[in-house]
C-alpha cells in the first residue's frame, strides 16, 4: 500500500490486516511508556486546509508514538493565504523531505491529485464529502472489538442516521461495515441522501450503495443492533435541506424516548464532534452501549497502524514484531 486515499481501494483482506495491526498498536498505547522507535527518522507532515482539531491531533499523536518527526501545516496561518498555489505548497514541503502527508481538504479528490505532485505517501484525512478512510477503519475496529466478533461484522444490523449526502464518514464507513458483512440502513430525509439514491432515473451499476433506506427513524429502531449518528450541520437549512434544526431533531434525533425502543444492549456511535440536542438528545455518558469515547481512543491506534503499514519496515517485512515494538 503506497497511499491510503479511499476505502474503495482496500480489499477485505487489507482491511482485516489493518484491524489486526491496530490491536498491536492498542497494546503499545496501554504501556506506561507508549512509544516505539518504528518510524524514527521518518517525517510525517499534516496538511490541514480545513479546520479539524481531533483528527489532526489524533494523527500527530499516532506519529509521535511511532517516533516519527512531525510537522504541521494549517491553512489559516499558511502561505495559501498569500496566494501560493496548492501544488507549489506541496512541492515546497516535499523538498524539505517529507515521507508522508496527512491531508485534509474541502475538495473531493485533492489527495489523489497530490499523488501527482510528490513522491511521498499520502494519507487522506478527509476530502470534501468523498472519503475519510481512517474514520472508517477506526469505526470498524471499534465496533468489531466491542462486539467481540474478531475481524467480522457478519449479520450485524446498523442504522446510520443523518446527513449522508454531505458525509465523507458515511461514504467510507458504510463501505467498511458492508465489507465486514454488516447490514446497513441509511436513515435520513430524502434531501440528505445522495441524489443517486433518491432519483430513480440516476441508475448506474458501478457505484451502487449496498444498503437499505428509511426515512423514518422510529420504524427501524426495533430492528437494529447499532445506531451510528452523523453530525448535523446547522448551515444545511440555508440550502433548503431541512426546515430547521429543531424539526430535524424531532424526527431524526436520538431522544430518550427513542432510546427506549432500542434493544437494551445496543451500541451507539458518533464520529464527533456532537451537536447535543440535535442528532443526539441523550447524554452519551449515560448510554451503556456508547462507543463514542472508544472511537476516539481507537483512532490513535488505527492511525498508528496506517502510518506503520505505509512507512514502516513492517511493510516490507524487514522487521519482526519484537523489533517494531522495542
Amino acid at each position, binding site marked *: 500500500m503506497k497511499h491510503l486515499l479511499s476505502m474503495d481501494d482496500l480489499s477485505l483482506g487489507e482491511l482485516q490486516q489493518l484491524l489486526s495491526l491496530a490491536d498491536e498498536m492498542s497494546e503499545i498505547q496501554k504501556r506506561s511508556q507508549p512509544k516505539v522507535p518504528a518510524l524514527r527518522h521518518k517525517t510525517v507532515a499534516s496538511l490541514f486546509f480545513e479546520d479539524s482539531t481531533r483528527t489532526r491531533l489524533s494523527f500527530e499523536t499516532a506519529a509521535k508514538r511511532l517516533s516519527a518527526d512531525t510537522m504541521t501545516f494549517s491553512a489559516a496561518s499558511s502561505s495559501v493565504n498569500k496566494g501560493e*498555489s496548492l501544488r507549489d505548497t506541496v512541492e515546497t514541503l516535499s523538498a524539505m523531505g517529507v515521507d508522508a502527508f496527512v491531508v485534509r481538504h474541502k475538495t473531493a*479528490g485533492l489527495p*489523489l*491529485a497530490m499523488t501527482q505532485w510528490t513522491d511521498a505517501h499520502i494519507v487522506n484525512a478527509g476530502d470534501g*464529502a468523498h472519503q475519510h478512510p481512517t474514520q472508517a477503519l477506526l469505526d470498524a475496529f471499534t465496533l468489531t472489538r466491542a462486539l467481540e466478533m474478531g475481524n467480522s461484522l457478519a449479520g450485524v444490523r446498523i442504522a446510520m442516521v443523518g446527513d449522508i449526502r454531505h458525509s465523507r464518514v458515511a461514504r467510507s464507513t458504510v463501505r467498511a461495515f458492508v465489507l465486514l458483512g454488516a447490514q446497513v440502513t441509511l436513515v435520513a430525509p430524502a434531501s440528505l441522501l445522495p441524489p443517486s439514491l433518491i432519483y430513480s432515473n440516476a441508475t448506474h451499476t458501478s457505484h451502487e450503495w449496498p444498503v437499505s433506506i428509511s426515512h423514518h427513524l422510529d420504524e427501524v429502531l426495533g430492528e437494529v443492533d447499532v445506531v451510528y449518528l452523523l453530525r448535523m450541520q446547522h448551515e444545511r437549512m440555508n440550502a433548503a435541506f431541512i426546515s430547521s434544526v429543531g424539526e430535524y431533531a424531532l424526527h431524526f434525533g436520538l431522544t430518550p424516548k427513542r432510546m427506549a425502543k432500542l434493544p437494551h444492549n445496543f451500541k451507539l456511535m458518533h464520529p464527533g464532534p456532537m451537536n447535543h440536542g440535535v442528532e443526539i438528545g441523550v447524554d452519551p455518558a449515560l448510554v451503556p452501549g456508547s462507543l463514542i469515547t472508544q472511537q476516539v481512543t481507537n483512532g490513535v491506534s488505527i492511525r498508528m497502524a496506517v502510518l506503520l503499514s505505509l512507512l514502516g519496515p513492517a511493510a516490507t517485512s524487514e522487521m519482526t514484531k519484537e523489533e517494531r515494538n522495542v
Partner: protein
Amino acid sequence: MSSNKSVLITGGTVVNASGEVLADVMIDQGVVQEVGPNIAAKYAAESEGGPQRIDATSCVITSAFVDLHTHLREPGREESETIETGSRAAVLGGYGAVVAMPNTEPAQDSVAVVEFVRMQGERAGLVDVVPSACITVNRAGLQLGPFHSLTQNGVTLYTDDGNGVQDPVIMRRAMEYAKELNITLMQHCEVSRLTEGAVMHEGCCSSHLGLPGWPSIAEVLMLQRDLELVRETGAKMHFLHLSTARSVELIRQAKNEGLPVTAEVTPHHFSLTDEKLTGFNTVFKVNPPLRTMEDVEALRTGMQDGTIDAIATDHAPHAAHLKDQDLLAAPPGMLGLQSALGVALKYSGCSVQRVIDLMSWAPARIAGLTARQGNAVAAGNIANLVVFNPAAEWEQSLEQIVSKSHNTPYLGLPLQGQVQYVVRDGKVILEAGVITK
C-alpha cells in the same frame, strides 16, 4: 484580400448540401471560378506558371467550418489564449469563422470592446472573428446591454454565456429587443440556484465521489422557460451547449411547433460521460458538465435527425496553473477547436455530409455569416474552404496543440477525420496541416 495566385484543388470529393461529386475546384481572385470533373487538364502545371495545385485525393472539399462558440480569452486572460493563438487553433481545426464569446475582461458589452475583438481578429487574419455581445451589462444579469448601439455596429448574436440569464423580467425584455432588432439571443441554460458549488453532473458518479452535483433539471427548467418566452415574443433564440436527453426532446417539440429556435451541442457532450471524473481530473470539469451515456445517445440522435442544428466547440482554454487546482477551485472548460472534426466523425454517428451541415452550413446561417461562410463550393462563391480526409484516424498529442493552453480531454482517445488544407479568400493558409500564413 483576394490572392493573386490562383489555386486548383484536384482529385477530391466536393460535398455540398445538394450532394457530392468527384470534382476539381478552380479558385481565382478569391472566388471559386469553376467546379467540375477533370477540369485540371485545362490548366498549366504549377512549374509552368499555372495555378497552385492541391492534391485532395481521398479528401472532402467543402465550405470551411463555423464555430458558434469560441472563448478566445482576449482581452483580459491572455495567459490562457489570445485572439491570434485561438485563430491558429481554429485554422488547424478547419474553421473559417469563429464567434467570440463575450465573457472577456472587460466583457464584450460595449461597442469599444466588440470593435477591439473584431480588430484583433482582422489583425491575426486567419479566420473571421465574429464578436458576440452580452445580453446584460458585464453578464451580471441585472441591466440590459446596449442592443441598439451594438446592432448598429454589426453585432447579431447576444449571450451571457457562462451565466444563464436568471431573471425572467430581464429575459423577457431582452427578447422584446431581439424581436424588434432581428438579432439572435443565445442562452446558456442553467438555473444557478440549482447548481451552486457544482463541479460535475448530479448522478451516480457524483453521489459516489461526494462531489456537488449539477442536476440536469437546472438546464431543462431554463430551457422550458425560454421556449415559452420565444412562443410569446417571437424572438429568435439559439440554445448553447445542450447536454441532457430531455433538452433534445424539448427542442424537437419546439421545432415541431414551428418556434424560431436553434440548438448546438459540443463535441465533448456527445463523446464523453461523467465517469471521466472518477479520477478527479480537472480537465474534465466543464459547464454544463459531462453527463451520462443516456444523454450522450440522445444528443447523437438529435444531431442525426436534425433536432440539433450545430456542433459548437465551447473551446475554453485555461492556463495550466488555473487547471492545476482542486476540482472546486479549477475553472470549467476544455479545448475544442483542433479536435472537433475528429470527434464529430468518430463519435456523432452522423454521415460526413451531416457533420458538414452541423459544423459549417447551419452555424453560418445561425450566425448570419452566409455572405462569406457556409456556402456551396460553386462558381461565384467566395473561396472559404476546408479540405479534410474523413477516414484518417489519429490521436491528439500535446505537441499538436497551438492554443496557449493545453486542457484537451482527448489525449489518447481515437479520433477520425483530419484537416489538410484551409483556403481563406482564395488563399491557401493551411497546407498539409501546417499554417503557411
